[in-house]
């Protein structure tokens, strides 16, 4: 039986799950839990929230499975649920948490001298990566969302636009603005790296 489940297509599993077979839905969850988790983690940036939201996503999907009509793939459908729930979660958190973090990050960046932390190019690259991560996290959610979807998840502007319920042009614009903001924040680090490369 287990083997039969493994071999079933998503469509077959969805049909069985809609007919009340929880093992079929559990198989779907097993197939996609890692991708959903990593997508959520990309936004939430902490394991506990990613874990909670992943569970919530699958529970919400199960509860509304009757409404799934197969117009998109199961993964696209559940992915949309995951992103929407995560964005809602982050919006709720934003007022208290994100603003504090943003302020802290800016202060931290101002306090730290980029050259003093890691003189070697290799460690500089590692630090650069960390700083980029921080810069992305510090972006307002409006810009962070398309960055997560397009840059990290590899979605097209069109796909991201549908998830975020905006136009492709808006995604394009937000990606551009996000890159400008990240580069502004990263300028000291990028310059240091350039000077190392020129030596």
């Amino acid at each position, binding site marked *: 039986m287990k083997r039969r489940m493994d071999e079933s297509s998503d469509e077959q599993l969805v049909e069985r799950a809609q007919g009340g077979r929880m093992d079929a839905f559990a198989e779907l969850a097993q197939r996609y*839990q890692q991708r959903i988790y990593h997508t959520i983690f990309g936004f939430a940036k902490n394991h506990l929230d990613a874990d909670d939201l992943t569970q919530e996503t699958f529970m919400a999907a199960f509860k509304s499975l009757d409404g799934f009509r197969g117009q998109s793939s199961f993964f696209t459908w559940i992915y949309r649920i995951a992103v929407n729930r995560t964005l809602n979660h982050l919006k709720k958190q934003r007022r208290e948490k994100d603003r504090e973090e943003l302020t802290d990050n800016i202060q931290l960046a101002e306090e730290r001298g980029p050259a003093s932390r890691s003189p070697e190019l290799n460690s500089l690259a590692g630090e650069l990566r960390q700083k980029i991560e921080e810069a992305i996290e510090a972006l307002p959610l409006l810009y962070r969302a398309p960055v997560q979807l397009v840059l990290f998840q590899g979605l097209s*502007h069109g796909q991201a636009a549908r998830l975020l319920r905006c136009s492709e042009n808006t995604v*394009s614009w937000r990606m551009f603005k996000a890159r400008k903001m990240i580069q502004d924040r990263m300028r000291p680090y990028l310059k240091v790296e350039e000077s190392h490369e020129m030596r």
Partner: protein
Amino acid sequence: MRCAKYERWISDRLDGALSGEKGKKLEAHLGTCLSCRTFSRAAQRVQQEAKAIPAGSVPEGYWEESLNRLRTKLAALSPRAEKKPLFGLGWKWAFVAAPLILLAVAGGIFFFPRPAATAADYYLNDHETLGLIYSEISDSPELERAFNQVLESSIQDNLGGEGEVRESHLENPLLYRVVSDEEMAFLLEELKKEIKS
């Protein structure tokens, strides 16, 4: 101002969203503009490093544990299977389906003699049922025509397109195949109420 447009194109190109024509124009511009080349190089560097950021690692055994937790939560929900009986879908469905089934019942039984032991409990009085339906729809020739078509197709279904009543049709009339005794009793009770009201 002019460079802002090209910077946006640089961003689009990194996302794979720049058309070929714009791409050529961008290349030509980059050949002459140091500022845009700098922006492009920095954007590429950020992109490259961002993509190399490792995905969040999870504790060992997490996926299995997470799945088990999900299974437990799913099991705690009222099972979907319990709401699956054909006529257990709620009143909205019943109101939509009742007239159709009524027509099918009426069509099926009106033209077929049935074994007395089962028929007595299952069917409304044929003449009364059809009489009620026709009296309800007599003001509308369209409805009457549609009803006649439904009756006709119901009969054809029973005949299997063969044009004559066979023994197998009598043993296995239309609704016997899909409706349990309990469901049929329930359905008929509800139909009676509908007709009375």
